[in-house]
């Protein structure tokens, strides 16, 4: 048994595997299949100030080795999260990352402020959502906007603040450096890549929202590249995700520089994926005689 524990911004994880925001709800549905305390942590569904109904269906499309989603941040609002979902999750022995979002920096800060008096372990600020004030361009696509929203949230919370970056940018390292400078304690990446599919028989986009976020194994090489670049550009920890579907993938992304790993679309293919990945990581480490998973973080030797 290798030591799988990791520490990210002072928070201890019993293992590095965290279901990604949006794929795992608030955990209840998967608890039918396995005890949640097997997980290192859980990133909860992106939560906004008020209830959001999300986009019209279809919201899901398949792609080669991946998928698109256009859920559109459907969620019951932060008060419901704090009253109903969080207390339940806090009884489980795992790290809770509250994924939050908003259409203005104000909204993001207000959501974070509400979490300040709770026992949630970390805040994961999703800056990929469109900023209504700035004409819909996502916060995460400009250094200024990314820094601005990070600063506003930083000002209202003492909890470890993880900023979740969008891959749909020319330079993810610039964005990462901006949010680091603005006070982020860690970054997580990658969110989904913007994609589209068309039903050629109807001539209509498959998603009612026309476009959606691509994730799954297809995006894994992009995640590895971005995690590697960002880990080399900032001095704060990186939580890696994007297409991880096996223990080997998780090891690869940690070698690229991730201190912990989130698992998204792979859970749809195999609902036990997070648990299986933990086991596969352990087996691989044991087979190599590596005592602790911490020993592999960022160890890739570039040519």
């Amino acid at each position, binding site marked *: 048994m290798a030591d799988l524990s990791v520490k990210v911004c002072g928070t201890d994880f019993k293992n590095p595997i965290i279901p990604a925001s949006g*794929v795992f709800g608030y955990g209840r549905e998967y608890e039918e299949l396995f005890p949640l305390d097997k997980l290192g942590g859980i990133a909860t569904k992106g939560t906004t100030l008020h209830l959001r109904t999300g986009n019209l269906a279809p919201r899901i499309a398949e792609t080669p080795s991946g998928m698109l989603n256009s859920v559109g941040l459907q969620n019951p609002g932060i008060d419901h999260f704090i009253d109903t979902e969080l207390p339940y999750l806090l009884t489980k022995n795992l790290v809770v990352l509250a994924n939050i979002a908003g259409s203005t920096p104000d909204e993001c800060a207000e959501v974070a402020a509400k979490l300040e008096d709770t026992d949630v372990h970390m805040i994961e600020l999703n800056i990929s959502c469109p900023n209504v004030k700035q004409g819909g361009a996502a916060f995460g696509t400009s250094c200024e906007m990314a820094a601005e929203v990070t600063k506003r949230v930083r000002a209202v919370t003492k909890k470890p603040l993880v900023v979740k970056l969008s891959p749909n940018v020319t330079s993810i390292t610039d964005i990462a450096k901006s949010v680091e400078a603005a006070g982020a304690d860690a970054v997580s990446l990658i969110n989904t890549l913007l994609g589209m599919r068309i039903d050629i028989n109807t001539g209509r986009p498959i998603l009612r929202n026309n476009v959606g976020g691509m994730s799954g194994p297809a995006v894994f090489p992009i995640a590895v590249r971005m995690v590697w670049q960002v880990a080399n550009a900032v001095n704060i920890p990186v939580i890696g995700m994007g297409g991880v579907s096996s223990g080997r993938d998780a090891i690869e992304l940690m070698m690229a520089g991730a201190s912990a790993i989130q698992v998204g679309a792979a859970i749809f293919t195999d609902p036990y994926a997070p648990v299986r990945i933990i086991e596969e990581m352990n087996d691989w480490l044991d087979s190599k005689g590596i005592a602790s998973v911490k020993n592999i973080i960022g160890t890739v030797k570039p040519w």
Partner: protein
Amino acid sequence: MKYTQGQYIITDKKAIACEIYSFTIACPEVAAAASPGQFVHIRAKGYTLRRPISICGIDKDKGTLRIVFEIRGEGTAEIAKLNKGDLIDMLAPLGHGFTLNDTYNKVVLIGGGIGTPPMLPLAAFYGKKAVAISGFRNASAVILQNDFIRTGAETILCTDDGSAGIHGFVTQPFTELAKQGGIDAVYACGPMPMLKGIAAICKENGIFCQISLEERMACGIGACLGCACRTVRNDEEYFAHVCKDGPVFNAEEVLW
């Protein structure tokens, strides 16, 4: 157990029409938990998303489920390659099924095309109290009629082109039945226009109606919010999820 994921042995495979297959699967704990209207979420090798398929038969004694599905694209084509003796990977049983009531005296089951399979477990439950109306494109697409007859249900067959049974849509015989009265409940699954038509007739005639909807799914268990469906609950608009709140909904809840 609510639902579980596992690999189960296919104990029987039959091609029952052009590109339509029937699988019998040995999965005792799933069969024990399953009820009519629920579905199974099947992994297709090489594909990220599972495919939702309705349960077409539940044999709790033998511990088997039956599914009937059509090849519609790459994933169902891959699943159709599985043979008797192979393992099938299912997350099941999922969703909220039909409301069954043994005090009902007369129910109508309406299936359109590949929407017919989920009607069969209802016929098995209601037997002679059921009238099963099935509609298909043409004679070569007709499935399951003998299975319906074996349950004791009265069967009415329609085809769009008249090549078998009544020439026309299922709504025609149903409208007549509805006029005759005495129907306690209608259950339906099939293409949207058909469901809409049936719901309208039921509303007009004050008949309780449940329909099974389709939507593109990822998780299949209510976690990803992928399979949204606009409904009304307590007079408020509510984004329900086909995989968890459905696939069966009361027709009056649905915002078409």
